[in-house]
Each structure stands twice: as structure tokens, then as C-alpha cells.
């Protein structure tokens, strides 16, 4: 319908390689960007700070995880630990007087270094072993943060994050935090979109498909896997720092337990492995579905249905599990594939028997 391919002819290689070849998609992207930029003026502060802001931040983190899981085919069950390292190092760097911009960099580097150390231990093995090793990383980092007072400020302690300052100007309130997160999100999104067009991205794809074959083609699987871990952990660290600076405004160990890792993995799986758009959709679904479901259950409970408080407390877990299992069985490529199906249908509409 609106997805018209007619009349699009490429006369140069850059034109053929552009990110969005269809005019409608460029218009849509522009619209989304414009909406994202003026969102603070359109939405109420409550909507902005409790829905849009977490969506943007969790999308950054899920994009980083998707680089590893969808791009390089490496499973990571301890991504919340990576974010925790970033969050704590940024907080301590900023409290020590470092500017906010540099603190973000410190967060990324610290996460990348520690992520690569664990990755190097785990990268010579793969599949199930890698999954278990990253699970172990989650527990070990949790333990280390909780038990070293210099990091966490003592057990059960919460460390307040200083107000972020961009070029010395303090950025306060949810609106400022939203713009910081949005800028980082745009940068990471552009990076992920362009990744598949670089030699790095193609090497990762080759390793994902078959690492022997990649090795034979001259791609050092070990080196590229380490680079994937490094990049992904860097993004995770920055996302963790943004999360605590712009959203929670304080950092404590409970924010980054195994549940958070599971939530991130669910975002990537539900959204679609290796898809940038899918990651955003998956993050939205995983963040919003429990809220919608608990609202539904609350209204059902108030209308007289016997629903216990235990069940209501455990609904998000049930939902994450059901979403992961359901999507893997029914649509392993996630929401991105559903969008792709719709797009393919619209490309040839109304001639639905034609091949696109």
C-alpha cells in the first residue's frame, strides 16, 4: 500500500546500500524521531518518567545484549551484572568528581574489561557451557558488589547518584534524563543499524552461523567473539550508568539481580534475535505487559474473582516465562518477524499472490 517499491531505482552503490531504501520507511523514521524529540511536551510527566524513559533506557541495554545474542550468537545470562558494573563505576567516578561524560566512558570501559575477562574464560567453550559460565558471572558479580563495602557502601546500602552535568550544566528532572537517554539510544541504535554493513558485523554473522566455517574463511573466531563481548559489555555498562543516573537516581545491588538478566533476555527473544526494531518492540512488550496484566488482574480481583496476592506478585515472572517459551515455539524470530510479515504483505498489496 504505502510501502511502494515502484519507481525506486538505484543509480549508485551508496543509494543501494542505504539503511531505509523505501521512502515510506524514511518518513516513518523521521516521524518517530520527531515524536521522540517532542515527547516531553506531548506527554504528561508521569507518562514520560514511568513509561517512555524506562523504555528508552532498557532498549539501549537490550540492543547491547542483542549484539551478542543475535549478532554473534553467543548467549549471555549475566547481562544485568555487566550493567551493574557500569552503574557502580559511573556512580563512583562521578562522586569522585569526574564529569558525567567521562563517567559514562568509565562505566563502559569497566564493564567491557570485566565482561571480557569473564568472556575470555567462557569463550573457548560454547553453547550450554557459555550459558552456565555467564550465569556464574551473574552470581559472582552480585556477591562481589554486595560484599565489598567500597563498592556498594555496605550491605543493603543504596548509593545516591550525583546530578548528571553535561559540559558543566546540571541536567535535572525526568526531562533532562530523558534527553540524555535518548541521545545515547540514538547513537547505539545507529551503531547497531550500521553494524551489519561493516566487516565486524559480517564477521560476527559468519561466526554465528558456523564458527568452523568462519575460521576457514580467515575470521579469527576467538578474536571476534572477544570483540563482540567487549562491544556488547561496553554498551551494557553505559546503559547501566544511564539507568541509575537518569531513572533510578541511586544505585543498589537489588537493581541488577538475575531477574533483570532474565528480563533482558526475554526482551531480546520476544523482540527478535538480531533485529534492531524488534529489540525496541520487545523491550516495550516486556516492560508494559506486566503492568497491563496486573492492571487487568486488579480489576478482575476487585470485581470479585478470587485471585490471591501471591499469584499477583508472581504474575510478571509467569508472563516472562510464558512469553519466552511461547515465542520460541510459535515465532522464534519474535515481534520483528511479525512486523516483517506485515511489511512484506503490504509491499505487494493488493496483489497478495505476487512475490515481493
Amino acid at each position, binding site marked *: 500500500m504505502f510501502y511502494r517499491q515502484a519507481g525506486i531505482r538505484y543509480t549508485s552503490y551508496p543509494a543501494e546500500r542505504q539503511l531505509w531504501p523505501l521512502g515510506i520507511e524514511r518518513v516513518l523514521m523521521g516521524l518517530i524521531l520527531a515524536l521522540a524529540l517532542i515527547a516531553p511536551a506531548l506527554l504528561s510527566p508521569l507518562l514520560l518518567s514511568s513509561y517512555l524513559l524506562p523504555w528508552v533506557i532498557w532498549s539501549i541495554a537490550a540492543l547491547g545484549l542483542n549484539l551478542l545474542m543475535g549478532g554473534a550468537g553467543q548467549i549471555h545470562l549475566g547481562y544485568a551484572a555487566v550493567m551493574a558494573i557500569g552503574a557502580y563505576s559511573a556512580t563512583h567516578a562521578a562522586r569522585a568528581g569526574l564529569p558525567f561524560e567521562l563517567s559514562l566512558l568509565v562505566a563502559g570501559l569497566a564493564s567491557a574489561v570485566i565482561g571480557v575477562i569473564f568472556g575470555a574464560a567462557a569463550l573457548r567453550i560454547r553453547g550450554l*557451557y557459555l550459558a552456565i559460565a555467564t550465569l*556464574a558471572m551473574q552470581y559472582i558479580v552480585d556477591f562481589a558488589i554486595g560484599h565489598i563495602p567500597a563498592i556498594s557502601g555496605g550491605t543493603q546500602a543504596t548509593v545516591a547518584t550525583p546530578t548528571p552535568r553535561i559540559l558543566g550544566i546540571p541536567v535535572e528532572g525526568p526531562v533532562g534524563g530523558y534527553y540524555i537517554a535518548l541521545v545515547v539510544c540514538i547513537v547505539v541504535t545507529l551503531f547497531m543499524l550500521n553494524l551489519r554493513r561493516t566487516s565486524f558485523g559480517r564477521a560476527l554473522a559468519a561466526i554465528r552461523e558456523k564458527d568452523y566455517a568462519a575460521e576457514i574463511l580467515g575470521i579469527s573466531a576467538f578474536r571476534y567473539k572477544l570483540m563482540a563481548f567487549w562491544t556488547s559489555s561496553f554498551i551494557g555498562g553505559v546503559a547501566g550508568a544511564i539507568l541509575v543516573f537518569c531513572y533510578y537516581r541511586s544505585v543498589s545491588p537489588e537493581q541488577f539481580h538475575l531477574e533483570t538478566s532474565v528480563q533482558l533476555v526475554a526482551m531480546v527473544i520476544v523482540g527478535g534475535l538480531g533485529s534492531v526494531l524488534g529489540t525496541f518492540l520487545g523491550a516495550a512488550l516486556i516492560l508494559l505487559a506486566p503492568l497491563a496484566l496486573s492492571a487487568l488482574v486488579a480489576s478482575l480481583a476487585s470485581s470479585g474473582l478470587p485471585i490471591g496476592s501471591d*499469584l499477583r506478585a508472581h504474575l510478571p515472572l509467569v508472563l*516472562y516465562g*510464558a512469553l519466552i517459551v511461547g515465542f520460541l*515455539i510459535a515465532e*522464534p524470530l519474535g515481534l520483528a518477524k511479525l512486523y516483517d510479515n506485515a511489511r512484506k504483505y503490504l509491499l505487494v498489496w493488493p496483489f497478495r499472490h505476487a512475490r515481493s
Partner: protein
Amino acid sequence: MDLALFGELIINGALVGLMYALAALGIVLVYRTSGLANLAQGAIAMLGGYLGWITIAWLGLHPILGALVAMVVMFAIGLGIERTTLRPLIGQPVIMIIMVTIGLEILMRGLVPGLLGSGVKRLDLGISDAPLFLGDMLINRTYLVSAGIALIIILATLALFNSRIGIMLRAVSDDQTASWSVGIRVEWAIAFAWGLAAVTGTAAGILWGGSQGVDWTLSLLLIKALAIAILGGLDSIVGVVVAGLIVGVAEAIASGLFDPLVGGGTRDIVACVIILATLLVKPEGLFGREHIERV
């Protein structure tokens, strides 16, 4: 530290380790037969513990009878899990299978306490609380009986692997296509392994629930079971026993030595350290076959 306390830690640790080994057996059984990851074992053990609570504490059956009923039900649930979630994913990359078992783990971890109540439930297995004394050392009677039961179940599984069914399972683990061509029903063998894994998980859940109480924390057995499975080698039943003893003793000693220094919690980290150390030094484990593809 005086010697009696040390010996006490070692003996009780070894007994607890045997109970962990029972949970790890489920991971090994599934891996050995189908080469699939079973990261849902913690939740299976938890569900088994809850079922044991239903049959023993709620319906008032004799503990042994109740445990047997729970195991039979869980065998059926294990078959059901394989049929509904694992079989549709045959041929998918390993990452998908890992993810689907994690999804199952999360689903059950939410659903079971959500429906049956999340408070700690007392499960009385009829083992007296009176401690046993061995010289100066104090031994937990519940642990001793549970470890004995665990050892019997593990040995029974080992015996099963030398029976006709076991030969079939081993053939399937060696080469699925070849087994198929000589007339072994591969799907059936894999389903049977899942059923068996659910049974051993249930036994672990009931025994552990009998000493700790039944609640969602039973699913934390997963990380210890994984550590044991990795250390013992993912496809060795003997390895499970030895690694179970090692992990149990290491946990007990670590929590005895380091807990006063760092303020508790070392018990949970030992399993993770063992996992990482094994993967670094000898990824195939103590008794596993060396077939890990290093890249």
C-alpha cells in the same frame, strides 16, 4: 579451627552434596540422552517439592507413598514438558533450546508459588530431628537419611543404564540417526530421559524441602546442580556422585572458613567459582567424554 568442627563440616557437607547430586542427575540424564541443556531442573525440583508437600502434608499420605505418587506425577509432567516444548524445537540452534528451558524455569518459578502460595511450607518426612553424634561430631540426621536415599536413587539410575532401557538410552546418546535406523524410538528415549530427570528432580526437591521447607528457593538448586554436572562431566553418572561430594564439602568448608570474614553468603558463590574453574582448567569435567569443541 578445631578438628571436630572441621570434620563435622566435611561430613554434613558431603551429605548435602549427595542431595545436590540428585538434582544434578536430571541435567546429566537429559544431556546424556539428547545432548540438550536442561536449565529447568531447578524449577522441576521446586515443583516436585510442592507436589510432595501436596501429597504428604496436604493429603496426609505416608511420606514414602506420597513421594512415590509425586514422582509418578512428575514423570508424566516431564514427558509433557518434552512433548510440548522441546520436541517442536528439534533442529533449532542450541541457544534456542537453552532459552526455552530457561523460559520454562521462569514460568514454573512464577506459576507454582503463585498458585500454591509463596510462604515457606513445612514438609515433615517423618525423620526425627534428634542429632547423631559420631565422637564429638554432630551429624544432622535428616541430612544422613536424605543422602542415603539420594545415593540409592543415583545407584538405581546407574543400574538402569546397564539394563535394556539404559542400553537404548546410551545408543541414542551416541548417535541418534544410527539408533533410529536400528529401530530404537529416539523420541521415546528422549521423552523417557526427561521423565526420569523430573523424577530425580522431584526426589531432590522433596528431600531438600524436608530439611529446608518448601518454597521457591528450592529452584536455587539449579546453580548447584549445574556446578555438579559441569564438574563431574555432563555425561557421567559416576561423576555426579563424586562432584556432588566435592561441591558439598567445598561449600561447607568455604562457609565455615570465610563466612565470619566477609559476613555470610559464601555458600552460594562456591558453586559459581567451581563452574568457572572447571571451565577454565578442564571443561569436559572430571569424568566426561572429551568432545567439547574448542574454538
